[in-house]
């Protein structure tokens, strides 16, 4: 694996305001992830794992004071405009959530294509053919070729999560951010999905940042970090 960091977060703070009360969640967390690396973030519930992931994915911004920094391939996310931030989300990262978050009105195929539609907006019309075939290939990798016209409600949890992963990959991102991707699945299905993720990652050279509170799941990564009291604590390489 290459040793250059694709994303580098340093000393980031995130405080939520609840009425007049400040709720500090991240208090100077730092994390550096190399290209092609699989990092597992472990932590107790409420420790701020999802918050960190949202910040890395450009879905939210960290506190201005004290100022931290998140650099993606050398570009400072904090300084990006809203439009550039949208582009960052649609091109460079893909999100996978614990509860799949598929759009219930759309079919499996349309859900996967939604990412491409958002990215290209009107340009999508001319790319439609290529996108449909790319979505078809992705769904084939996850064994869902027969389910293209189905609605999410007609799928099992594992199948839904596979659709969600395919959706996150449609725009060929550099980083996949997975927030407890197996948290809602039984161990067997969870492991199968982790196997597939591992396969996709190595075939595409994808960087994978995965949040989990399950130590066994966390061990699937190259490296494991723990989030405690709003800072990234003990770091242990898992590959020996």
């Amino acid at each position, binding site marked *: 694996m290459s040793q250059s960091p694709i994303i580098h977060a340093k000393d980031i703070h995130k405080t939520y305001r609840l009425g007049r009360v400040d709720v500090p969640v991240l208090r100077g967390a730092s994390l550096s992830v190399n290209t092609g690396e699989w990092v597992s973030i472990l932590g107790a519930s409420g420790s701020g794992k999802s918050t960190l992931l949202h910040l890395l994915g450009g879905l939210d911004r960290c506190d201005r004071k004290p100022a931290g920094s998140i650099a993606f391939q050398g570009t400072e996310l904090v300084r990006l405009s809203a439009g550039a931030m949208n582009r960052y989300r649609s091109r460079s990262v893909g999100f996978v959530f614990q509860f799949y978050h598929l759009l219930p009105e759309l079919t499996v195929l349309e859900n996967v294509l939604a*990412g491409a539609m958002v990215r290209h907006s009107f340009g999508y019309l001319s790319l439609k053919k290529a996108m449909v075939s790319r979505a078809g290939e992705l769904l084939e990798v996850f064994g869902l070729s027969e389910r293209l016209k189905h609605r999410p409600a007609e799928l099992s949890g594992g199948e839904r999560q596979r659709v969600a992963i395919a959706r996150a990959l449609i725009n060929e991102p550099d980083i996949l951010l997975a927030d407890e991707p197996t948290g809602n699945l039984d161990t067997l299905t969870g492991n199968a999905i982790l196997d597939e993720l591992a396969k996709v990652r190595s075939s595409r050279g994808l960087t994978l940042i995965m949040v989990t509170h399950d130590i066994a799941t966390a061990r699937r990564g190259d490296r494991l970090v723990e989030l405690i009291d709003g800072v990234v604590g003990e770091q242990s390489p898992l590959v020996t």
Partner: protein
Amino acid sequence: MPLLAALAVALCTTMVLVTWSVMGGFLDMLLDSGRNLIGDVAITWPNSGFAYYDELGQMLQDDEMVQAWAPMIETFGLISLPDGRRETVMVKGIQGPSYARVTNYKDTLYWQPLDKPLRTDPHSEDWRLTHHDLWENRYEQGLSLTEPRIDRMGQLVADEPAVVLGIELSGFNIRKAGGWYMPGVPRKFNADGTEEAVDVFMPNSRITLTVLPLDDKGRNIDVTARAFPVANEFRTGLYDLDKNVVLIRLDALQNMLKLHEAQRVIKVDADMPGTELQPESFDQPGEVLTKDPARVTAVIVRAVDGFDAITLKARCREIYAKFEARHQGDVPAQTAIIMSTWEDQNRTMISAVKKETALVLTLFSFISLTAVMLIVVIFWVMVAEKTRDIGVIRALGASKTGIASIWLIYGLCIGLVGSAMGGILSYTIVTNINPIHEWMGNALGITIWDPSVYYFSSIPNQMDAFHAAIVLVGGVLASVVGAALPSLRAANLDPVRALRFE
């Protein structure tokens, strides 16, 4: 939910469009009907009338703006119907052919052959569909206001002048739901409390007409009554006319009103020309017979297509001035004679209808604001329901504008669907408004359109494409405006919070 929003749009556009079509159509009918009923301009001098109208007519006819002209007498009278009822009526003396050139008299003659049944008559029950020759005969008699008098031996005695009655006047015609008439069998009540059925078909019966000849001061000279055969009946669709007007052949009415051409015997003193002598001395030599010219109370004029009534009115004034110059003192002065268009004659009513239309439309447009509010509420709820999905789409990289435009486009679609439904619905209602109204009257006992109030016996059933376009585009715009506020809310949702939303 979205269907509900579309339905609200549909109902509001329907409400506004149906009202506009009916009220606007009513106004158009009011304005148009004038042209069909009295032509464009009426030159009138009531009571004693004016002479040399043929000459005036010729002068008018020679003008490039004038399509046709017709002499007419208008007066009041009393009609005795076959069942003994008497009704006060408006009597119009006309020459059938010339009257038909200025107005649409031919089309209004009711008893004439009908080649195919009315659209509203699926079982071909209309009498006029059979006995073609009989109705053709009736039609000719109606057009000439003349009926042959046959004696007991079946011999033609003479052609006699006849009348044509408004279809609603006698009360013997029953209007069927499909809009055609059939002679009914009404009851006649006697003084002793008994009642009997009277079976009459007006064009086969006679009526008695009583009129009051008036002098030029409006004083009554003499009451004249005379029996006439009924040649036909007419239906203009203007309830007032169909209920109150009797048409009669012009010469017959001139005779009754003493407006006919009369010979006057004048003795001219051979020694002193220009001096009239008293009638006692008529047997002596030197007498001269002159004619007192026939008179009418009105001349009606129709413009050549392309000239409007107001232009024609001005032209008629000029022509009348020349006419007056030829008959100085014998005809009413140009400054005194009454020239009026249909709109002049019905100005109060027409302007009232115009104002009322505007008022009702404004009111309904305000009511339609509730539909906009409804869309705001419905979209607000839909945005709330879709909060998490909005978060997901933001996570996929969508911008705020992108989110807002999704909802705006959704609003646009709902507006389009709603307006389309509204357009179809109101078109169906407007074009079928008379059968619907008839059904409401029969089944529910609701009668909104009372012909005696609204003038026309049928409700306007035309839809103006321009009006429809305005209302439907308005419906679409209103939906987009209604969706705007919820769209803004959707756009400004915090994506992280939206994703946590359950």
